């Protein structure tokens, strides 16, 4: 944990600590006072504790993207409260730049925002903006690139446009990591990647929590990805929290998920179907491996 984002890192996985982000009764309205007025958040309360991975689910238009923009201080709440690492975003004296250093946001398709010709320069952009000493910048870029699986020496002088889709996505992620946030918010981190690149990036994301002690917030349509990575879930519907709890619990409640228009990951659907058919298969399997083992155990007796 020597090269962690901050000395000592957060608490190890599995015993999440105090709330690092607290959202209470948050409302948001787009184009208020116009005919296109649309309420995107209706009293959302949620928290993110140090060292955990929190998944946010919901159909398109459920408020996910609006919510995560608050988490890293892109917006100040008008109604409701958002406290990030002790900073109340509604307080005009809170410097939102500080908040953005604590919480790094990786947008969907982040590689479309890369502009430096060389990979190393692109990753260094954030720390350079912070006006850090050159040595520190270099150390951070090295750490961030190594952490995402783009070895510094091999990739720093590569042209960004020569990278594969998966490598480009990792470089964009490294650019946010180099700011050394405590919390990383990932919006659809693997969408559009091929299965091989997706699996590799998922492993790297898991390592960021397990080895580097980062706290993660994950927004994804890919239920299997959410199931694999998240400790806890919030399900949004029409701007409100429709369900929340540990991953297995939320996915285990098929009726509730169906009510918000979501299907659990396929392995969960398999187990639920078998149980509906009267098969005594273990009910809480989440992944392909767990579902297969549950089926095999049933048939093996």
């Amino acid at each position: 944990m020597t090269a962690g984002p901050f000395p000592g890192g957060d608490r190890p996985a599995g015993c999440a600590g105090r709330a690092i982000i607290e959202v209470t009764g948050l409302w948001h309205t787009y184009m208020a006072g116009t005919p296109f007025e649309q309420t995107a958040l209706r009293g959302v309360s949620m928290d993110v504790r140090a060292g955990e991975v929190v998944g946010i689910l919901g159909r398109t238009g459920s408020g996910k993207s609006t919510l995560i923009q608050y988490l890293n201080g892109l917006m100040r709440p008008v109604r409701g409260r958002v406290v990030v690492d002790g900073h109340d975003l509604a307080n005009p004296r809170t410097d939102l730049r500080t908040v953005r250093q604590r919480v790094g946001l990786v947008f969907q398709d982040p590689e479309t925002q890369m502009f430096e010709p060389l990979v190393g320069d692109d990753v260094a952009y954030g720390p350079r903006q912070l006006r850090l000493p050159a040595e520190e910048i270099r150390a951070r870029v090295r750490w961030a690139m190594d952490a995402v699986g783009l070895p510094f020496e091999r990739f720093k002088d590569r042209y960004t446009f020569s990278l594969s889709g998966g490598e480009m996505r990792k470089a964009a992620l490294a650019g946010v990591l180099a700011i050394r946030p405590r919390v990383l918010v990932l919006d659809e981190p693997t969408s559009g990647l091929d299965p091989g690149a997706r699996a590799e990036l998922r492993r790297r994301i898991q390592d960021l929590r397990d080895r580097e002690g980062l706290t993660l917030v994950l927004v994804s349509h890919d239920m299997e990805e959410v199931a694999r990575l998240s400790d806890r879930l919030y399900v949004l519907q029409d701007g409100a929290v429709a369900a929340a709890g540990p991953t297995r619990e939320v996915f285990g409640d098929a009726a509730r998920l169906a009510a918000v228009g979501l299907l659990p990951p396929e392995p969960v659907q398999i187990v639920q179907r078998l149980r509906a058919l009267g098969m005594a298969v273990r009910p809480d399997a989440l992944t392909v491996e767990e579902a297969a083992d549950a089926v095999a155990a049933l048939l093996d007796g």
Partner: protein
Amino acid sequence: MPGPLIVCEDIHFSYAASAGTGPVAGAPAAPAGPPAAPPREAGVLRGISLRIDPGEYVAVVGPNGSGKSTLARHFNALLRPTSGRVVVAGMDTRDLAHTRAIRGTVGMVFQHPESQMVATIVEEDVAFGPENLGVPHDELRVRVREALELVGMWGARERPPHLLSAGQKQRVAIAAVLAMRPACLVLDEATSMLDPEGREAVAGIIAELRGRGTAVVAITHLMNEAARADRIVALAEGAVLLDRPPREVFARADLLRDVGLDLPAVTAVALRVRSRIPAFPVDVLSIDELAAAVVARAGQRA
């Protein structure tokens, strides 16, 4: 049965050969120090032969850079092969005189629907293509309504496209292509940005089109989507790795894994069950089939 809709005969393609471009505009001089590894040439085609028949539903899968999108762009003459030939409804794509007719025969929808929206009202956006083809006004109205009803967006015909959700935009983009009445719809990762509900809506549209005899070619990373096709063409490094029905393609798990492709979750579960229960079938493509296999097997034991 009429002849094939699209035939590719040993097509080769390389972006470098096609455009003859030098370094990318705006790129700096090469950096000092040891040269970086040469950029891999993605999207190259190395001798692809295949055919698409009228009314067929074909999924094209492959890792990033395997040439899927490059191949798709050959189907309606957005790209032309460096060697070999592509014939669409009897028309060679290298003959520029056919380009217009070819694009009326094979319509494409891309990953980002915004990239192909032109009008400020849904209805006008859908009318744009056929209007340009010179379709008379009355016929135009019929086509626009038919296309918007098919994708379930007739109710939104007077709305501005930019206020629609991603899934709704994609449905409008599909309607805009369908209004040209193509014999084949090519979806180039058209569902990769959509949520599960949006994906289901597109799957429903595909089913409807098959009922009407329109061929569909879907380029996708989603194996459970590909599992629904009549045939899967798996590409790797610009060549056809497999061109078989889904069941036969997914039976080659090792081959797929070698090129970085995976299996639909149900097939992966079945394969893992088989590692412990040797007689368990692995050619399952849906939850129904898997459940039936488990029930049958449990029944034997009882």
